């Protein structure tokens, strides 16, 4: 029987078949953050239950914590401090590893977990955070859940999971220079829609995926939730093993050898069948950018705001998006003037993202009317960037250089880019008011953000970095 990677991971963790397509799955790693994990820990304690295995539960401060230099427990978000102090108290009581505000390993959950080897190939990983699918890039089964489900996982070490169908998305060919995993995500969303993956666990495959470095794979899997999929995943391979070896929570010595032997079998068998297959040849793919208010509203950065017929949106959604974004059909994307640029988030804040953005920015200045901010995904990333002098490139170009966290990927009542401000952002969501009241977000890769910051309008990094 030829099996898909998903089927192998499902069977490996199946404690009990509950019937009706539901499986009781063992959960190997639980990650929490102060925004939604705090309420799970508090609610668990209030019910008199305890964490089944605290050694496999981790918590970070990323969503609410400020990213301004000199930060502490106070945040610009009204009421934010309580999320931090209550999470700290609950984590201490539960006896779990907390990456606290001043911890040198603090950072965004989906950046910290891979860089410390907490997520492993073949592991099940859950977190009350929709972008947990990011971690599927390590060959794991990783998905976002609610706070009540997090409480369930904490108490029982399991979850009752509705078994999804399987989909393989193959990106064949070879990405051109300056075209990235982010552009693959936007290509998929613009072609098959923001609900295209609904009901599926998606495996990304193909030559262009195999060629991606691990950090780029994390970017690709990150936006599986924007595709409405349960998760995205990429089979672990030699790159994955090399990335993980020696990381703090990864196995060492004989345990590493035993783990490696198992991990090497965790891929879809040749001839395994998926419920759905999607294929792209990405050799001529240009960088992508969004024009509207759903991640599916994406076009080439060299393109134009589409008309309704080619937009993939319903007439009502299309009109609403045009109005909100203040764009007109036929306008060249590169004619849209921007007021702000943001590099960060669980999608694109790793050291390779910062290196690529810095390469575009080196020796250049952001346009005078643009506010530009870069937020490393973890303090580990921040230190690595500073050791390479990347911070000096960003600062010289006119970017703010921040402490790590989710920062301005979303607006929680604190910092924002201002009403009707047009922002180019390396994040994952361009929803109405996501980054601030009435803020107009254009999602793109870090290099597109950097190039746009310099140009003061949406720009193609390939024409700047030459």
């Amino acid at each position, binding site marked *: 029987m030829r099996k898909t990677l998903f089927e192998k991971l499902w069977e490996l963790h199946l*404690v*009990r078949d*509950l019937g009706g397509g*539901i499986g*009781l799955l*063992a959960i*190997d790693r639980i990650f929490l953050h102060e*925004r*939604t994990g*705090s*309420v799970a820990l508090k*609610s668990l304690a209030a019910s008199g239950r305890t964490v089944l295995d605290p*050694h*496999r539960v981790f918590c970070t401060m990323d969503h609410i914590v400020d990213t301004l230099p000199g930060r502490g427990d106070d945040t610009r*978000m009204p*009421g934010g401090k*309580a999320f931090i102090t*209550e*999470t700290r108290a609950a984590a201490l009581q539960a006896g779990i590893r907390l990456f606290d505000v001043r911890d040198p390993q603090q950072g965004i959950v989906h950046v910290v977990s891979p860089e410390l080897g907490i997520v*492993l190939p073949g*592991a099940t990983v859950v977190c*009350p955070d*929709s972008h947990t699918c990011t971690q599927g890039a390590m060959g794991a089964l990783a*998905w*976002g*859940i*609610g706070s*009540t*489900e997090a*409480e*369930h996982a904490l*108490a*029982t*070490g*399991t979850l*009752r999971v*509705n078994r*999804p169908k399987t989909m393989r998305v193959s990106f064949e060919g070879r990405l051109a220079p300056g075209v990235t995993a982010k552009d693959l995500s936007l290509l998929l969303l613009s072609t098959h829609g923001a*609900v295209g993956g*609904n*009901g599926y666990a998606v495996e990304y495959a193909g030559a262009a995926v195999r060629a991606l470095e691990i950090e780029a794979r994390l970017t690709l899997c990150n936006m599986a*939730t*924007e595709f*409405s*999929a349960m998760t995205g995943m990429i089979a672990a391979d030699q790159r994955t093993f090399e990335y993980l070896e020696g990381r703090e*929570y990864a*196995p060492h010595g004989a345990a590493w050898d*035993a783990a490696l032997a*198992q991990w090497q079998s965790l891929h879809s068998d040749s001839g395994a069948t998926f419920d759905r297959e999607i294929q792209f040849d990405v050799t001529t793919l240009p960088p992508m950018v969004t024009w509207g208010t759903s991640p599916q509203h994406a076009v080439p950065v060299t393109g134009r705001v589409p008309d309704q017929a080619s937009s993939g949106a319903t007439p009502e*959604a299309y009109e609403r998006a045009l109005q909100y974004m203040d764009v007109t059909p036929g306008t060249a994307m590169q004619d849209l003037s921007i007021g702000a640029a943001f590099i960060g988030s669980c999608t694109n804040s790793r050291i390779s993202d910062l290196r690529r953005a810095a390469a575009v920015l080196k020796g250049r200045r952001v346009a005078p009317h643009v506010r530009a901010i870069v937020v490393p995904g973890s303090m580990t990333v921040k230190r690595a960037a500073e050791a390479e002098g990347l911070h000096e490139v960003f600062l010289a170009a006119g970017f703010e250089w921040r402490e790590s966290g989710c920062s301005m990927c979303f*607006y*929680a*009542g604190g910092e924002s880019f201002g009403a009707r401000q047009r922002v180019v952002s390396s994040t994952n*969501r361009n*929803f*109405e*008011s*996501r980054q601030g*009241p*009435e803020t107009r977000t254009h999602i793109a890769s870090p290099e597109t953000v950097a190039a746009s910051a310099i140009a003061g309008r949406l720009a193609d990094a390939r024409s700047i970095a030459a």
Partner: protein
Amino acid sequence: MQPFTTLTAVAAPLLRANVDTDAIIPSREMKTVGKTGLADGLFAGWRYTAIGGREPNPQFVLNQGAFAGARILLSGDNFGCGSSREHAVWALHEYGFRAVVAPSYSPIFYGNCIRNGIVPVRLAADSIASIASWVQLDPRQHLVTVDLMQCRVQAGSAFDFKFDIEPEPRLMLLEGLDGIDLTLKSRPLIEAFLERDRRGRPWIYLDAKP
């Protein structure tokens, strides 16, 4: 959790695709570490005239008198997409909603509904559009019934649609079951799994780590 069997109530149409959880409950409205105090912030960005304000926007469906007390929400594809925040479901529940009718849901939002006594009904978009048109004629008289026993949505004598829901979520909603209690009945199986797995995949277990 309150069991759900059948509900006949005012239904409010919000026929947009991709209604995300940021729209259902903006992050700025999640002010305390808890599950309550969220109804006021429900759809805040659309419901009020200004961000952070509380002056009702008369254009928004829930501010129109005919839809006061609505307990069923009619909406579009991919409802509840975006952030995993369960606060979206808590806010809907606290406001009074007990059922959502949409063509599809984000998987996380769907699971959150099941765990909080809100029935996420899946119906075809054209069926929902027909119900919405009929409701609009006279929202307070044209009530909609969500029957979880029969898995049907009925709208007067005009419409009667069957919907699909997986057996376990249906049972959890019908009986108001707590997932943790249910799972703890499998405790011996969980313990046996862990013992076996610890031998097969020792690297997963971190308690022995120096």
